[in-house]
């Protein structure tokens, strides 16, 4: 009898990659990937960047053409939503009532938009930005909208704000915290973004909470803040973070704590179930072994490859890929290497008054990570410094004449 399939729940970045890497890694059995959207796997990052501005079309977002899946014998299903799993029988039940047996199950279900719990959030003209369908709708509106409000000054909110500003709209960004990208970025780097977005004509309102959205005939007209300000907007984008899709795992008795909890091999407490990507709370060596949930392409892809390697009998080492991330806002290319929470010292390279600089973030003697704007060389070196765990001192980082690259690439004799 043939073995049941490896079943992957979710066909986003992580779900696609685990299937592709299983096949490339020599797994010969059946692979079933369930996705609840109507699209084959596509790239999300351009949705808030090039796609909005029309420089990438729908076809350019596809990770692979349709023919790829048949050729690789990957049963890539769309419009197929998993409803529950039965761990004792090792089956997934779908919303259409069918069941699929698994030999191993991978949760790659990602996260969904966090709703804004205020009156009016369901008015027409109010959007979120996570899926291709949402981006498609926004792309229709972005060119004609004159007044745009963005609620949440995170990466996606600010990327959208920059795109709308570029398209000629008057854009106001509102956030409860005191600076942009507050959860992920140093205050020093954040202040550069405040300055640069302001310079380009975007209004940024910090320490400001939204009370409600006002509308006429079901269409949004303005955003009202708790301190009584009214910001006119015919188009509103909400980007206040995400909620991991961990309900199915939780209902099946798996541990859930800000995501599906996995060990250093990305396995849940059930040896037949792994979890990867945006939904996986995993111990990360770059966070001192603390459990983190990381929302990035790097994390989704590297975790997918790690699980595929384990399932094809290759991996032994605990997961520990160096984290990296990027965000494109206007002409500012932000790149982050490492996990920088808890840093206590910043060493600067370049000119923070301009738009090209690097900030090296240390905790004590240890380099936690590097934030850069338009300094790709520093970023790539940082990725390698972190991956190889080479010691960098604050003095070396501070000395612009010292080429940090030589620490990871010893000069050839």
């Amino acid at each position, binding site marked *: 009898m043939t073995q049941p399939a490896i079943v992957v729940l979710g066909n986003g970045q992580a779900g696609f990659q685990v299937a592709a890497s299983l096949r490339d890694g020599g797994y010969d059995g059946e692979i079933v990937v369930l996705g609840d959207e109507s699209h084959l796997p596509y790239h999300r990052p351009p949705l808030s960047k090039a796609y909005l501005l029309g420089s990438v079309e729908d*076809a350019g977002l596809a990770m692979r053409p349709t023919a790829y899946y048949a050729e690789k014998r990957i049963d890539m299903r769309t419009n197929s939503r998993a409803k529950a799993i039965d761990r004792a029988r090792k089956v997934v039940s779908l919303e259409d009532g069918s069941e699929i047996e698994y030999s191993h199950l991978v949760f790659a279900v990602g996260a969904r938009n966090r709703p804004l719990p205020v009156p009016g959030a369901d008015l027409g003209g109010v959007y979120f930005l996570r899926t291709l369908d949402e981006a498609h709708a926004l792309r229709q509106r972005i060119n004609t909208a004159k007044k745009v409000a963005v609620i949440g000054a995170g990466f996606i909110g600010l990327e959208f704000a920059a795109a709308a500003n570029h398209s000629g709209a008057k854009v106001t960004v509102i956030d409860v915290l005191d600076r942009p990208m507050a959860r992920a970025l140093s205050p020093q780097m954040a202040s550069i973004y405040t300055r640069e977005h302001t310079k380009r004509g975007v209004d940024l309102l910090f320490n400001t909470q939204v009370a409600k959205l006002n509308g006429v005939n079901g269409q949004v007209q303005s955003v009202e803040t708790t301190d009584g300000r009214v910001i006119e907007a015919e188009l509103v984008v909400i980007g206040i973070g995400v909620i991991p899709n961990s309900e199915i795992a939780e209902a099946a008795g798996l541990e859930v704590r800000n995501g599906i909890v996995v060990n250093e091999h990305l396995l849940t407490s059930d040896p037949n179930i792994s979890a990867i990507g945006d939904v996986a709370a995993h111990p990360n060596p770059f966070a001192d072994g603390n459990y983190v949930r990381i929302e990035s392409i790097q994390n989704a892809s590297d975790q997918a490859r790690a699980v595929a390697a384990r399932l094809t009998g290759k991996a032994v080492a605990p997961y520990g890929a160096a984290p990296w991330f990027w965000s494109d806002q206007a002409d500012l290319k932000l790149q982050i290497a490492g996990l920088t929470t808890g840093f206590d010292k910043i060493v600067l390279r370049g000119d923070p008054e301009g738009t090209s600089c690097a900030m090296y973030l240390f905790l004590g003697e240890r380099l936690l990570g590097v934030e850069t704007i338009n300094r*790709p060389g520093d970023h790539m070196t940082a990725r390698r410094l972190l991956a190889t765990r080479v010691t960098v001192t604050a003095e070396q980082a501070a000395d612009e004449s010292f080429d940090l690259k030589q620490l990871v690439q010893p000069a050839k004799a």
Partner: protein
Amino acid sequence: MPKITFVEPSGKQVEVDAPAGITLLQAAINNNIQGIVGECGGACQCATCHVYIEAPWTDTLPAVGDMEDAMLESTAADRLPTSRLGCEVEISSAMEGLVVHLPSKQF
């Protein structure tokens, strides 16, 4: 539409009609070419769309930008003078007959 030939790692040659305006990465993905990944979706962040451009095209393509140059330092297969990132090369009608080799590895 310019005709472009991709030479896969196995040596297999695939000639495709590629519309001007899309990138070499997109043309390769659309045609299911082996040996290219493009993990970051063309954002110049991953260097898994590394290609080698055959002479005489190496010198006639638009120059390598700063971002691309930094990423090319991190390719899995050796960086050669003919190296480019597929997502950074936009196809133009002048590229009729371009020959693009895929490296043996992207990771």
